[in-house]
């Protein structure tokens, strides 16, 4: 049984990962590996996500009906599972993005309050 603290930290990461997956799929359906690559590329490799953790996140999003999975063939004619943003997922992404902006803004204000910039 893991301790509480650890579990909370994981949850926080997962929540962020969920948001990134949704954002990535906004550009169109993609398979798992492509999603991982896109997140890495777009974050300029700052976010080093263990690629495996993508899968629990994908399954959680499917369970919540924010994305759907379908069989398809990829560029080199290989069978692959494609993940696609649902309309619920689209709404959720907008919501989560707003929440994230708010949170990020608030944290930024706390960390660098206006007026203290010069003094410190």
């Amino acid at each position: 049984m893991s301790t509480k603290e650890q579990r909370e930290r994981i949850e926080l990461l997962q929540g962020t990962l969920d948001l990134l997956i949704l954002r990535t799929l906004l550009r169109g359906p993609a398979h798992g590996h492509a999603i991982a690559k896109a997140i890495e590329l777009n974050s300029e490799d700052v976010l080093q996500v263990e690629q495996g953790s993508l899968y629990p996140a994908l399954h959680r999003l499917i369970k919540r009906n924010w994305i759907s999975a379908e069989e398809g063939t990829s560029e080199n004619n290989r069978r692959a599972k494609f993940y696609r943003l649902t309309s619920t997922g689209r709404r959720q992404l907008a919501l989560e993005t707003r929440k994230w902006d708010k949170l990020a803004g608030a944290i930024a204000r706390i960390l660098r309050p206006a007026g203290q910039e010069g003094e410190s």
Partner: protein
Amino acid sequence: MKRRKRMLQELDADIRDHIERETQDNIDRGMSPEEARYAAQRKFGNVTLVKEETREVWSFTWLEHLLADIRFGLRMLRKSPGFTAVAMLTLALGIGANTAVFSLVYAVLLQPLPYKNPASLVVLNETTPKVGTVSVSYQNFLDWRTQSHSFSQLAAVHQINFNLAGISQPENISGDAVSPEYLSMMGVRPFLGRDFGASEDKAGTAPIVLLGYSLWQSHFGGDPDAVGKTISLDGRAFTIVGVLPADYRGFDKTDVMLPIGVWVTDNPEGASSRGERGDMVAIGRLAPGVTFQQAKTEMEGIAARLAKEYPATNDRFGVALQPIRDAFVGDAKPAIFLLFAAVLFVLLIACANVANLFLVRGASRTKEVALRIALGASSGRIIRQMLTESFVLSFLGGVLGVALAVAGNRGIAELIPQDMMPPGGVNLNGAVFGFASVVVILAAFLFGLAPALHATRPDVQVELKEGGRTASAGAAQNRLRGALAVAEISLALILLVGAGLMMKSLYLLLQVDPGFRTDRVLTLTMDLRTQQYAKDAAVLNFWQALLDRVRALPGVESAAVGTVVPLTESHSRSDVTIEGMAAPAPGDYPHPDVHLVSPGYAATLGIPVMRGRAFTDHDNENAPLVGMINLMMARRFFPKEDPIGKRFMFGHPSTANPPKWFTVIGVLGDTKLYGLANPARLEVYIPLRQRPTSKMTLAVKSGADPTALTSSIREAVQSIDKDQPIFAITTMKQLESDSVATRRMTLVLLGLFSGLALILGAIGIYGVISYSVAQRTHEIGVRIALGSPRRDVFRMIVGQGLRLAGIGITFGIVAAFGLARLMSSLLFGVSAADFETFAAVVALLVFVALLACYVPARRAMRVDPIVALRYE
């Protein structure tokens, strides 16, 4: 959950595919295949863990945990069968008693009434300060209906009895004459046939009836062709136009229903005279948006106007409104609430007891819990697991309890006064089972939470080091256990005080001299309703023939007929004027109960003649008009004179009402006509032959068991008129017993519950003390070894128990003082703070507490110091 299965099945392939792609990418970047695969795997992370976490997304971990906890709980309960049996039985008693009483509460107070939107239905009666609530006069009803705006509809319901003959044995049935809109207002549609038409409230309405469902079943075999046939009521043919639905519920049994126009036709006088208050209530449906209070205010205004307008009949008459539910429940409400509160107390005591048991067992499990916490179990998880154990126990107790309730249900139903009983009876239904489930859950929390929180609190290190010995189970836990025992004693005291007060009330009530004899007197009623009794002479002949034949029966000591037998529902009151009395306001005339009786009435019922003489056969239609009055009447109106020879008349003197004076020839003792708990009222008695009437109750004093006479009396009646039904066959003893039925039911159940509480409370104290003795064996051993007399040890232990009892008793007395006042409407002749009752209950509790301490104290006294010390 097909999605779940498919997603998980393909997970392996997806992961393999992912890693292959990454490997390919790496190869493309110039790595060797081996290196590329290794890097891809490292980047992916722990495959097994990923799979596990993904699987967890789809699984119901909480459900799996719950099932594991339940299995574990069952195993733990099986491992200590003694504990489980005691706890389960305690809970079963608590939950069973609650379920049984709730089934009563539901049937009487909660079960939806079978009407459309019953919440807006209001029952209206008239009131007079002389009597209280009385029936409505039809003329007043008609004025109420035209003048009020609070009701969208207002209907009259007049209770009538009929003699039904020609189908089986002649019998007396009850019916309602109702305004034609009554059924549609109530939202009731006939099961068969038609509702009454709007015009069927006028004089001249043809005799038609709707049959009650059960009469239709019993007398017509449920034959739909009954509609259109006729039924013989009072010797007249009524056309059956339909059948009421099976779930129809009236205030009395409704064997037949007829439009009020039929009653208006048959009783032109009753329908047109405003002073005639027969047996009618009005029922109204509040207009949309009108509150009960608004309707009440409006109706009171109308009643006040009518009182001014028609002082002769309405002076000081008001109006009483009540929601229809209250009209059904009557005065049983406080008793039911009392029982419900009592049974909740029993449950609380049961929970306290089980919590105590859990704490004892928790003490022996501290090591297990500490070990689990040390191994990383969160305390939340352990609390959840222990609560699950409580739930399992509570559930098992609940199942057993409901079984007990099912068994006890019949008994409770028998205790309920008949008029309180809804037609479906008291039974266990969905609502009752729902309630039982809620109780099970609440109980589990009540007795499970404190021990669970306690179990997870101890310092892990200390517990493990202590090697599981329970010496450090801690002062806090002992305090909690003591507090639980104290609470049990307090609750038991409250219940015992309630039961004690009820017992004393009932005892005092049965000591009340009713003013008449109840031993070996049979009563039965007859109503001569057919055309052959239209003439007074025929009526008188029937009663005379009846008395002659009954008096001749072997075993009969005396027999008489009278109109108002004490303790029955039937009453007849009238204003009287006493000769020479200054004329009071119309509403202030003396308003005695009027008895029309045959000679021998006072002797048969054992009502003492205080002055003068009783009626004889000579006080007949040809003799001067005479009457008897009761003692109260004599004292009130002739305080200083001899009432014999004084005269009174019925009604108010006026030119339209030439005086017909009755001369007082005797004074009888007062009788408790309205029940033992109610004060006597003014009464006058008139010889039957001077005021013939068709409905009378025959009272027969027998030398032996009076009920043995029933069949020979029935034969006597049939030999005079084979179609004449007799009904309401009972004994005065039974009437007396019925009159205290609600109180007796309350006493029996309260006694049962408080007895249960006492036993559980005693077990509680016993448990706490004997556990503490076990804990202190070492200490006691040391004391004895150091020379402390064993008597002192005994005293110390008993003192500990008595201290708990003392605290509990103190709290209990304070609470009982407050709570007993709420039951004062159920008490008779005893104050809610009755010293004797409180003293007796305290003495009983102290005695029981002593008893509960005795065994553990003896055990403590006999502690062998050597054994106790070696035990270390």
